[in-house]
């Protein structure tokens, strides 16, 4: 059993991990930046250590600082949370070298899935459906043209080191291939210091469906159902729900089965997520595997009753999962709305400021994961996630009604937030009917009234700013 976990993250996910440690009866230490000195996680943890100043390169992604922090505070494990270094094989292998348990997958699996081409090949070998594409990196324009003719247009030029929508260029027709190749290679060199690219067929629209897997070091690999993350803007997820509305049960069953097979084929251990693009005709293709805890993990927790964070910690400590697949029972419908400090009317610009007049929602079927407290200063250095409002109901309709109720209760001033966007989304006919696709955010904002949702109740809802 692990004894003391260094939480190498901030914001709501750091709070989430501190609470999981508390539930397990083990101690937590939060490594924080000087900009997060007064953060909720720092106050809730057993101990805290200042890693460096606000900019991430000198604090949250500073590997030496994290290792010194663990040494200084006697931590025997490190949880990387989401983002930052959570999928960086360098941190995971550095932890291994100094005898610190990394609460996540092995560095080899982080490296494999971080190489999008190697991931594609490994998953194809395991029987996971992938889009038609090149067998290796494309080196020359001649090779690209030949491969592109085989794949067909439209297609994508993708950076081998990309992921999360970065390093991708869509090529509508043969005339655009040469330019896309040069541009993607140059961008990949700058972004990832790796200019290898490959080709893959492009499919428009559809839905983003992902399968949660959980595996221990004793050969047990479970799936915990799927999540639908089709409400996205520029590859940033805004709202997630489970189950995916309208997904053919046979497609669901197949995606869950191939995800388990894919994880098992590489000997994966810890929580992980297989992302798929699902077309209206039921065709589904592997996009990538996220080798970490996901921001949207709570909707799976509400449906399965399984605490994914404590499970990750137990598995990292060598314990077997106490469940078989038959024990995993998914009930009802769950939905998560991400409340970001963003000004939707100013092209979703991230905003800083001090949160005042805070009132968080509660009540039956509502869970709020947040680091917000009255007077919280939103620092300029990090992503803009303030809170996750998560609701659960027997049906999709009940979960969405509870979400609307919770969003209406959510109140703060000082920074604009995405609360009103979510309420408009809930009223959009395509979303309400569960037939929305990846383009739904543009449809909602285009149809936006000049003022936020009007209520019969005169009380101001949502946020000011």
């Amino acid at each position: 059993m692990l004894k003391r976990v260094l939480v190498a993250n901030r914001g709501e996910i750091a709070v989430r991990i501190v609470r999981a440690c508390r539930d397990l009866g083990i101690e937590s230490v939060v490594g924080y930046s000087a900009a997060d000195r007064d953060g909720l996680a720092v106050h809730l943890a057993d101990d805290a250590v200042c890693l460096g100043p606000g900019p991430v390169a000198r604090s949250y992604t500073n590997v030496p600082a994290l290792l010194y922090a663990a040494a200084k505070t006697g931590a025997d494990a490190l949880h990387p949370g989401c983002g930052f270094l959570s999928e960086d094989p360098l941190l995971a292998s550095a932890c291994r070298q100094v005898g610190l348990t990394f609460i996540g997958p092995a560095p080899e699996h982080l490296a494999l899935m971080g190489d999008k081409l190697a991931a594609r090949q490994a998953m194809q070998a395991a029987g996971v459906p992938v889009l038609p594409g090149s067998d290796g990196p494309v080196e020359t324009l001649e090779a690209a043209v030949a491969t592109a003719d085989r794949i067909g247009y439209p297609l994508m030029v993708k950076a081998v080191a990309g992921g999360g929508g970065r390093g991708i260029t869509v090529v509508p027709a043969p005339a655009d291939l040469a330019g896309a190749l040069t541009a993607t290679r140059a961008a990949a060199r700058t972004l990832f210091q790796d200019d290898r690219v490959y080709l893959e067929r492009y499919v428009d629209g559809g839905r983003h469906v992902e399968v949660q897997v959980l595996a221990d070091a004793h050969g047990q690999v479970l799936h915990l159902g799927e999540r639908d993350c089709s409400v996205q803007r520029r590859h940033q997820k805004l709202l997630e729900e489970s189950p995916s509305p309208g997904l053919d049960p046979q497609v669901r069953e197949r995606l869950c089965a191939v995800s388990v097979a894919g994880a098992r084929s590489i000997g994966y251990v810890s929580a992980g997520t297989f992302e798929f693009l699902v077309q209206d005709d039921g065709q589904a293709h592997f996009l990538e595997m996220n080798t970490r805890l996901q921001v949207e993990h709570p909707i799976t927790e509400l449906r399965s009753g399984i605490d994914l964070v404590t499970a990750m910690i137990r598995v990292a400590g060598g314990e077997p999962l106490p469940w078989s697949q038959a024990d995993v029972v998914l009930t009802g419908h769950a939905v998560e709305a991400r409340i970001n400090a963003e000004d939707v009317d100013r092209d979703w610009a991230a905003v800083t400021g001090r949160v005042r007049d805070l009132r968080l929602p509660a009540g039956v079927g509502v869970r709020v994961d947040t680091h917000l407290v009255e007077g919280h200063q939103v620092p300029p250095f990090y992503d803009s996630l303030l809170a996750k409002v998560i609701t659960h109901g027997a049906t999709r309709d009940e979960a969405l009604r509870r979400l609307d109720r919770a969003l209406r209760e959510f109140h703060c001033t000082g920074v604009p937030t995405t609360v009103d966007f979510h309420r408009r989304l809930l009223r959009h006919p395509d979303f309400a009917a569960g037939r929305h696709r990846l383009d739904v955010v543009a449809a909602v904002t285009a149809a936006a009234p000049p003022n936020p949702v009007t209520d019969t109740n005169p009380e101001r809802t949502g946020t000011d700013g």
Partner: protein
Amino acid sequence: MTDSLDHALHAVVTVADLVRDGRLGRVRVQIGDLSIDVTAPVSENPPRAVESAPVEVATQTELPPVQVVVAPLMGVFFRAPAPDRPPFVAVAERVEIGQQIAVIEAMKLMNPVLADRAGVVREVHVADGEVVEFDQPLISIEPA
């Protein structure tokens, strides 16, 4: 440059908060060429109780006579350039601005710690070889 800007911004936010919360009446902060001087009317109400406030702050505050040099990064604190060498400075010794007074090792890189003012070393707060966190007080210097 960016670092000193970060520090300055952080200081401004902190000072503004302290003054607004009625915990301080007057504050003067100097970082390099930048100096901030804030005076607020002393509140009628007693200062708000703050759970994590490490020290009692008087309503009229001047710069304390002793200034503390803090760790510029995480790493291992050493008082001397090598185990068999004398320390950079000893208590009661005079230091000049910019003089090296300690070193912090991070992954084999030796990062010098410099005196940010001239004065006399009053106290060394950290044991040799201790891992220090960012902003941890290291050495107190009394301006001479």
